[in-house]
């Protein structure tokens, strides 16, 4: 198994929400590969569409949202062509998701053990109750929860423990891909650190592929191999984690990194990006970042740049790094 084997191939994915005020393009023509065994960070401000992208990967976009274009290939399975029951089989068994808020992600009137056995038996109906319970006990043991807590209700557990249970649920069937959607956001710092350690261990042990959706650059730095940056529904930069941090290309990534508080450098005042995220019903023309971009050029408001490879393992969606076409071609409107 090579590290470069592509597990999930996302091509030209668009997700739209049909709302009362118009069509909201939450994800706009995003293309991305997730490689087997890697931890891919997906970062961006809240509302940029990263969670929607994560949900789209499991085909869990809810009304009034819709996947309007693109192709999703998971392990060469065409996700968008699957019927509902085959899709359900895939969910939880091959692709799992860990959600942001462990306090509300567990059924409050269901015992912890029942969550796990239910998840196992839904996909492997041949497993007996006793077997499933034994597997659940093993699992929580591995996650550092004493298995006499199995019969507890979720409200008996602390936030950190609940999030471990959530991870346990994601791993109960040895899923290939775990999508962690802001999985640590609601945990306090110490619990978060423990949780990240656990995630790292599990990753090695189970040979997991993780899509780490977060707005926290610190977590990305700690865990991710590669990072994709998203802005206003579009992917703007993709790089290996070291390169991204040492040499950000896209002005938005730059701003994002400068906005992270850094104890060691003590740069005085924290950088604050100008402006606010755009209205996705009426996004800015051309590059969506241009109204806030410190390096904005004339073309930026006119023509969309292309998400383009500028170096091995490095893609940027910015006119700074691609040839600006002849003015005649774009004045007065977008080429797209």
């Amino acid at each position: 198994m090579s590290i470069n084997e592509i597990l999930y191939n996302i091509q030209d994915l668009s997700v739209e929400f049909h709302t009362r005020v118009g069509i909201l393009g939450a994800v706009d023509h995003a293309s991305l590969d997730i490689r087997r065994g890697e931890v891919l960070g997906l970062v961006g401000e809240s509302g940029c569409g990263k969670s929607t992208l994560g949900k789209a990967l499991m085909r869990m976009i809810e009304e009034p949202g819709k996947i309007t274009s693109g192709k999703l290939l998971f392990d060469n399975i065409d996700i968008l062509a699957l019927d509902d029951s085959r899709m359900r089989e895939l969910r939880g068994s091959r692709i799992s998701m860990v959600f942001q808020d462990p306090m509300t992600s567990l059924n409050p009137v269901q015992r912890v053990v029942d969550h796990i056995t239910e998840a196992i038996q839904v996909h492997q109906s041949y497993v007996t109750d006793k077997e499933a319970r034994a597997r659940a006990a093993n699992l929580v043991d591995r996650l550092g929860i004493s298995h006499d807590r199995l019969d507890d209700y979720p409200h008996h557990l602390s936030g950190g423990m609940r999030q471990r249970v959530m991870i346990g649920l994601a791993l109960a069937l040895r899923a290939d891909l775990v999508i962690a959607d802001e999985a640590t956001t609601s945990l306090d710092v110490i619990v978060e650190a423990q949780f990240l350690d656990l995630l790292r261990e599990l990753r090695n042990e189970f040979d997991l592929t993780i899509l780490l959706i977060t707005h926290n650059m610190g977590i990305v730095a700690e865990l991710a191999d590669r990072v994709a940056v998203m802005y206003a529904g579009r992917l703007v930069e993709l790089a290996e984690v070291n390169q991204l941090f040492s040499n950000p290309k896209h002005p938005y990534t730059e701003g994002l990194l400068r906005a992270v508080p850094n104890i060691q450098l003590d740069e005085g005042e924290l950088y604050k990006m100008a402006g606010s995220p755009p209205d996705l019903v009426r996004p800015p023309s051309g590059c969506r970042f241009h109204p806030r971009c410190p390096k904005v050029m004339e073309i930026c408001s006119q023509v969309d740049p292309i998400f383009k490879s500028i170096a091995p393992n490095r893609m940027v969606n910015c006119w700074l790094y691609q040839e600006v076409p002849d003015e005649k071609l774009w004045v007065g409107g977008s080429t797209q």
Partner: protein
Amino acid sequence: MAMTNTELAQNGSINQMIEDVGLLRRIWRGRLWYGTEWYITVFGGLILVTVTIVTLLAPILSPYDPNDFAGSQFIPPGGGPQVLLTRSGESNRVTESYLNEQLVGVQRNKNGTNIAIELELDYLRYQTQSEQIEALQNQEVDSILVDERDLDAIIADFPQLEIAADGIGPSFTLGTDNLGRDILSRLIWGARTVLGVAILSALLSSVVGISLGLISGFVSGPFDRVASLTMDSIYSFPGLLLAIAMAAMLGPGLLNVAIAISVIYIPTFFRVVRGQVLSIKEELHVEAARSLGAKPFSILFRYIFPLVIPSVVVVFSLNVADAILTEAGLSFIGLGLPPDVPDWGYDLSKGHSFLVAGHWWMITFPGVLITIVAMGFSLLGEGLSEILNPRLVKS
């Protein structure tokens, strides 16, 4: 995360856009904004507008006086006109002496029921057709009324009878009741009664409920606790029973019934208003007014009360719907209005007695109307709650 609809709805520019257009256009535009909720509301509204027009035009629309004995009893819908039959050779006498004076009027006996005072036709009202014909042949009476559609059959069987007058009373679209009153006219006039009582009682309870709710939510403390507990207790008590007890004590009468019903709905106004006041009280603009030294009274009425109005409108509409049902229930039990007031519930209770005889039209139409009008108010209330205040009632 994508923006939710409510977040979008709060978008200032869009609200401004809607503020700019006139009321009617605003209602019309709502169709795009609220989708199905809008159609529900407008459908409810249309029902109510229609009923209101009918009640206002009752004198014009109703073919008969609702208390008149306009035809013979139990004429089925579409039935009539009637034919006055008499023995051969006596038609002139009968026509002269009786026909013009046939209907004298209504009188109430001491039990409060209507009795028909008519000349000769009086006691025939409670007999079957064959009994009536027999009475005619035995010279007990001089004339009987029969349905024009039955005429051929009767003349064939009893050739010795002849027609004294025909075309008496045009047809009865919805038939007549046990006293020969026109059901359609009773329904049209009954709408006035039902709407009047229901709206009056909702008005009464809203005045009491809103003021108590405003004060209770605003001052808090022991007054609030006592008032809340009292209201909760009334709310948990079966309203109809309370209304029955009050109606029985107060005696019949339009205002009395309205008062009896209004007590049931005070708590609903109280609870909603109090809850809203409690949350509005903490809002910024009220805090600001207070810090600028506004008097408590003016805070309550200038800053808090206007914000409560949308919920009150919703509750009002839903309560009128329920009050209509309660009013009908009271009259059905026999505790409602005086018997000379046309009323749907009363008609139903009368129809109940003749149900087994198969006079379906007596109980069908009043019930359908009660349902439709109550539904109109419910739909309006539901829809409005969604449109005016999405948080009040879950869609």
